[in-house]
């Protein structure tokens, strides 16, 4: 693990704010791991806030909801932050923002809900893992084996990002109620929350709950990786090729738990999420509550004017985020950050020969030898990449980060992962 320059100072003390509504939202039909949804609306249809507009008959999927009320003006290809381009439903807003359509439930009503009711609500709300993986949450609420430990991921180890930290500070009670719902649904005995030591306020906030054990983690990267989190909290490793379930463990991100809270208590589907808009070019870095489908140019305008023209726009953090080719791209369920880099920061470094310094070997959090996989991958020796365990890579990017020769280790390892799987 590596200590990174955190750069969280830009936005860590900025309270959560609501981003203004966009004139149009672009909601991709795929914002999750699994099957692409089919549109359930036609061009010209009037949709209300929170209305289900796309779904599919499948096991692994999450439905999509209208994040503003208005009229469907188009259904077609549009820039997508992860896939480059994907089909999206476009809604032109009517600026009537009737969030009150959601019915509130009181504590007694919630307590009456059975585990299956909770799963059903979570599925209908379209909730996915919001730490970045976007795995549909209802599936994780129904583990194939009995689990006894719930880990809440509040590590937020990516530099720059502060959305989870703000959420933990400002929505502590809501997150706590969400955690209680999840632990009821799963029937777990123990609940941990892992928070990095650079978020003392969040740590303090959660220490008051007797039901939750707060684990203070060193602020190292990738502390928030599922494998690292389990190892550092429980002191055991997920056996190779197995899932956390097999250890009786389930891991949820704080933002996901918050979304579950909102779905259950407020009958609110996943129509917005917290996004950190940050970077040296941003004059007013913020933690914004953003409607899904909002084009990032609208967010930049809101946080602007920019101090300088960004040379690179990243959705996500600097280690695992994805560089975007246009500012028309919308925020989707997995977009936790919007990071702008200036020309200097975005400079592409020249790649040199590997000098076998072994920095990548020392720092790889899963014990791989990235430089060796890189050489084998460049020569298409897929048997060798398999032997070196390329498929165990968690794509954290540390190898590239420490490589003095600026080799594209992660990219070639990703390639090897694909080829090894064949």
């Amino acid at each position, binding site marked *: 693990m590596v200590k990174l320059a955190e750069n969280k100072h830009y936005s860590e003390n900025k309270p959560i704010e609501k981003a203004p509504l966009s004139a149009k939202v672009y909601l991709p039909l795929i914002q999750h791991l699994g099957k692409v949804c089919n549109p359930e609306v036609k061009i010209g249809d009037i949709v209300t806030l929170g209305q289900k507009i796309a779904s599919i008959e499948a096991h692994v999927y999450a439905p999509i909801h209208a994040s503003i009320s208005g009229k469907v003006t188009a259904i077609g290809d549009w820039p997508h932050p992860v896939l480059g381009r994907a089909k999206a439903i476009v809604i032109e807003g009517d600026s009537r923002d009737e969030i009150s359509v959601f019915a509130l439930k009181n504590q007694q009503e919630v307590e009456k809900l059975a585990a299956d009711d909770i799963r059903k609500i979570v599925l209908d709300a379209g909730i996915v893992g919001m730490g970045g993986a976007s795995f549909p949450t209802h599936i994780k609420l129904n583990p194939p084996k009995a689990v006894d430990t719930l880990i809440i991921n509040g590590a937020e180890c990516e530099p720059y990002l502060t959305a989870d930290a703000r959420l933990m500070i400002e929505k502590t009670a809501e997150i706590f109620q969400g955690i209680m719902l999840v632990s009821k649904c799963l029937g777990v005995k123990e609940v941990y929350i892992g928070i990095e030591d650079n978020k003392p306020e969040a740590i303090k906030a959660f220490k008051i709950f007797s039901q939750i054990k707060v684990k203070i983690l060193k602020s190292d990267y990738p502390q928030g990786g599922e494998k690292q989190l389990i190892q550092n909290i429980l002191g055991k490793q997920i*056996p190779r090729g197995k899932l956390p379930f097999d250890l009786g463990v389930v891991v949820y991100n704080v933002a996901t738990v918050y979304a579950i809270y909102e779905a259950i208590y407020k009958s609110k589907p996943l129509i917005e999420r917290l996004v950190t808009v940050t970077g040296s070019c941003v004059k007013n870095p913020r933690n914004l509550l953003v409607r899904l489908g909002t084009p990032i*140019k609208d967010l930049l305008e809101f946080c602007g004017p920019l101090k300088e023209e960004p*040379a690179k726009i990243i959705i996500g953090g600097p280690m695992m*985020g994805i*560089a975007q080719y*246009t500012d028309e791209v919308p925020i989707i369920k997995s977009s936790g950050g919007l*990071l702008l880099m200036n020309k200097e920061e975005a400079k592409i470094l020249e790649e040199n020969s590997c000098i076998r310094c072994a920095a990548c070997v020392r720092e790889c959090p899963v014990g791989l030898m990235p430089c060796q996989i890189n050489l084998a991958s460049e020569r298409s020796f897929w048997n060798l990449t398999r032997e070196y365990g390329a498929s165990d890579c968690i794509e954290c*990017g540390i190898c590239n980060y420490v490589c*003095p020769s600026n080799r594209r280790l992660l990219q070639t390892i990703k390639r090897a992962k694909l080829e090894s799987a064949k």
Partner: protein
Amino acid sequence: MKEIIRYGFILGLICVLAAGLLAGVNALTRAKIAEQKQAEEPSALKEIMPQAAKFIPIGQAPELLYYKAFDSQEQLIGFVFKASEKGYSSVIQTLVGMNLQGTISAIKVISQNETPGLGMRITENKFTDQFKNQDSLSLSDVQAITGATISSQAVMNSVIKKAQEIKELIENDPFDSAQVMLSELKESRSMKSNLIVSGSPHIHNKESVSRIMWTVVLSLIPAAVAGVIIFGWDALWVTLVATVAAVLTEWICGLLTKKKVTISDGSAVITGILLAYNLPPNVPLWLPVIGAVFSIAIGKQIFGGLGQNIFNPALVGRVFLMASWPKYMTTFTQPLRAGAGYDALTSATPLAILKEGKILEHISYWDLFLGKHGGCIGEVCILALLIGAAILLIKGYISWHIPASFILTTAGFTYIFAGVQLFHGDWLFHILSGGLILGAFFMATDYVATPLTAKGQLIFGVGCGLFTAIIRIWGGYPEGVSYAILMMNATTPFIDRYTKNKIYGTK
């Protein structure tokens, strides 16, 4: 009876021949006919939508749904579809052009078999021209032909019905709204088109090969200073000549192999310095030149340059010189004495004295530590070397594994075997003399030719220590550090293969 069979046979033969001929003609002309049909369509399409430059069929034949018409700027301008309905005596097929607003651009009856003189008049321009600019869903101003009402009505009905169908298809076709959306994307003025797109991660720890290499150069400077203090300016000249020769060789090799010239990364400088540090201070200056050329050209560039060499280049140069000019390589000057100035008195190294079986009485450990004895330029002053090593260890450019295991193994082995009896060896003397410290910290740690994992590095260090001690105790040479490192360099791929790190989640 016989006759019947004969004629039957002949008849049959003729039948077979005829059938064969027919089949042959069909086969020969089928492609041509199909081609003709294909050719027919575009011209017909063009006729009813002359402003279009390109037609793209939507749906697969035989279930071709309609055509999209694009103008020369690739803009969608309309649709063409085929409508058909039973008329008076046949099925009438009409090709219809419809623009984006849903009005008809033109129609053409392409297939019918109506009553000549009556129903057939639907093909006349007088009838078809009426459709132009009509709303495809109402056709309110189209008049049926007198005496051919059924045929006319069939055409009109088929057009309206099909237009309705096509409109629905188009509205639900994401491709069309995609066209609209993409043009919206093109028009959008705020779109940033010059964004840098690259794979994650997007930050770097700012470490670079040249930074590491120049830090190593820096860490070698104390030893050079010590060399000059101990042996005089000769030590400096040898070092400079070796370094310049190494850099020049690197440059020339880069030009010759048409590869990127990498002299600025500092790696050739290190090779030159390390080679000089392994030479006696009083060698003629052509010797470091030859050694440096050999180090870089044969020890490094021949394998492909930086990162590819399997042996430490400086040591390759050194053993080459040792084998070729052993006399120069084993004649050492005495250190300068205070007030005595430079003289050309020669003296053997402590290890050589030991090898000859003489007893070292006048050299204290302290002298060994400070380097007040004969030896190679860069190896004698342990103090200076340790200062440099500390820099590299603190910066994290080298790890402790190789130096520690190397030195401890040499010490342990010499303690056991180098004495007059077992466990009486002078291990401290062996650590402080010869090139052990220089080798252990600066040459055995050369990234390129050493193992990657900590485990592998420990094995490598132990191997170096063993070979060094064995050569020193029982070998023909007084010193064995160079050979030990080179031998272990050769085993590096093998060590790497069997000392992989434990992968997360495995036992």
